[in-house]
């Protein structure tokens, strides 16, 4: 589902990712580990085409993304559910509207949107906040809204960038469970995190980065 072949994407000589190669199967969850500044976000940004790739190929669901025409990038992004490290919630909309947004972009009918958004807000336990603005809820609540927004469209690929940084251990565990359960539907999940204690008990595969390079 996600296939990196000798991928190099750099901002400067010593910042970015260098010669990464890995593969993530349909229905698999993989953790991307590494200290701060290691290049985890850069890996994810390369996948959702936010930054250019200098060398190598990234193949998502059988498609070499460097071959995707500029005009088609939005359609490619719709198949990916991204949880951004800085949430990127829209502060001028309610929680409900934020979560509904990807469905509107995908052209889903209002009735279905209503049902799906309620469903996902229920699942992350924030249905009570649906009428609040992101500025009026706590950091951890914002983070979970960002997660709900990524999951609501049942994407084939889920990219989660530090999705538990603002959550306590119990809630973090629930979130990882949620991401894990998405793999049952066939999604491939790539989750960047530093929280080793969180993922250790799960015995899942992880990719370790250091200074932009793969360890082991």
């Amino acid at each position, binding site marked *: 589902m996600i296939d990196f072949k000798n991928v190099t994407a750099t901002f400067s000589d010593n910042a970015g990712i260098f010669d990464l190669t890995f593969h993530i199967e349909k229905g698999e969850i993989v953790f991307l580990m590494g200290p701060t500044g290691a290049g985890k976000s850069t890996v994810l940004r390369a996948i959702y085409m936010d930054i250019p790739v200098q060398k190598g190929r990234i193949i998502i669901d059988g498609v070499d993304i460097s071959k995707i025409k500029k005009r088609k990038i*939005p359609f*490619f*992004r719709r198949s*990916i559910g991204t949880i951004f490290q800085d949430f990127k919630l829209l502060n001028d*909309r309610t929680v409900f509207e934020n979560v509904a947004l990807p469905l509107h972009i995908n052209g889903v009918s209002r009735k279905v949107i209503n049902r799906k958004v309620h469903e996902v807000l229920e699942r992350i336990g924030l249905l009570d906040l649906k009428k609040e603005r992101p500025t009026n809820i706590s950091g951890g609540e914002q983070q979970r809204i960002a997660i709900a927004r990524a999951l609501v469209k049942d994407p084939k690929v889920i990219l989660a960038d530090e999705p538990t940084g603002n959550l306590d251990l119990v809630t973090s565990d629930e979130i990882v469970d949620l991401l894990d359960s998405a793999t049952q539907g066939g999604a491939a999940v790539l989750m960047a995190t530093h929280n080793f204690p969180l993922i250790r008990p799960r015995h899942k595969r992880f990719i370790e980065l250091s200074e932009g390079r793969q360890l082991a």
Partner: protein
Amino acid sequence: MISKAAFLVFEGFRALVRAKVPAIISSITIFITLMIFSIAYFGYINLKGYSLEFRKQYRIDVFFDASLDRDQCLDIFNSILLIDGIEQGDFIDRDRAAKIFERYFHKDVTEIVGTNPLPLGGKFEVAPEYRDVRIMSAIADKIRLINGVDLTVFQSGLIKKIDGFLDNLLTLAFIIGGAILIVSIIMVSNTIRLTIHSKRGDISTLRLLGATDRFIKLPFIIEGILQGLGGALLSLMTLWLFYLLMQYLQGYMRTYLISPELLIPGNIIIGMSLGLIGSYRGISKYLK
């Protein structure tokens, strides 16, 4: 697809409410633009009105051969009336001529001379569309060729002066009008660009979520059109007050007012177009 289009239209409406400050400022910009437009147009039709009024006074004076009698003169007078462009005429017999004499010398001509030796003549007005130095000169030349016409006087000097003056004014009005048009579009699209600039973070997020340019643009454009409508309504309200003022001033200075049948749809259409063009330009530039 229909539900998506409906969503985008709805988004445009809601954007107005969500970001009130930029929306209000854009509406005010369009309002001001429309006010400038309306007042400039008001100035223009007044200039035009004054100009036409002045040109009403343009006329051609004709004097007949002294050897002709009154009836012969009248015949020639009538034939001149038939010339293309001549709208109406005023036959000047001896009595009328004496009155003219009195106007310039303030004496009765028969009193100082004993008889009335003044020549017969006619004053002719030309139709509005002929009130122009070149055309009137041509008509005067034509009259001059008629048998029995002693002299044709067309005060081309004075008329040229007034014509030149009015043309200068109207040229100026047009330069200013053109400038205002360009300026308004720049102004409105700049204002809307600023409101878009203040939402740049949200726009980049929408893109990362897979929104197409069309999806991002449409709400801005609808918001722009609504802002245009808002500005137009504001301007109509203000112009209504301006009308009341002008009607009150009508006693003191003559003014030509724009008819509401032109003003109301004009403002609404121009306002909404400005909003449309401004937001389209603004968001398109931004997304490039």
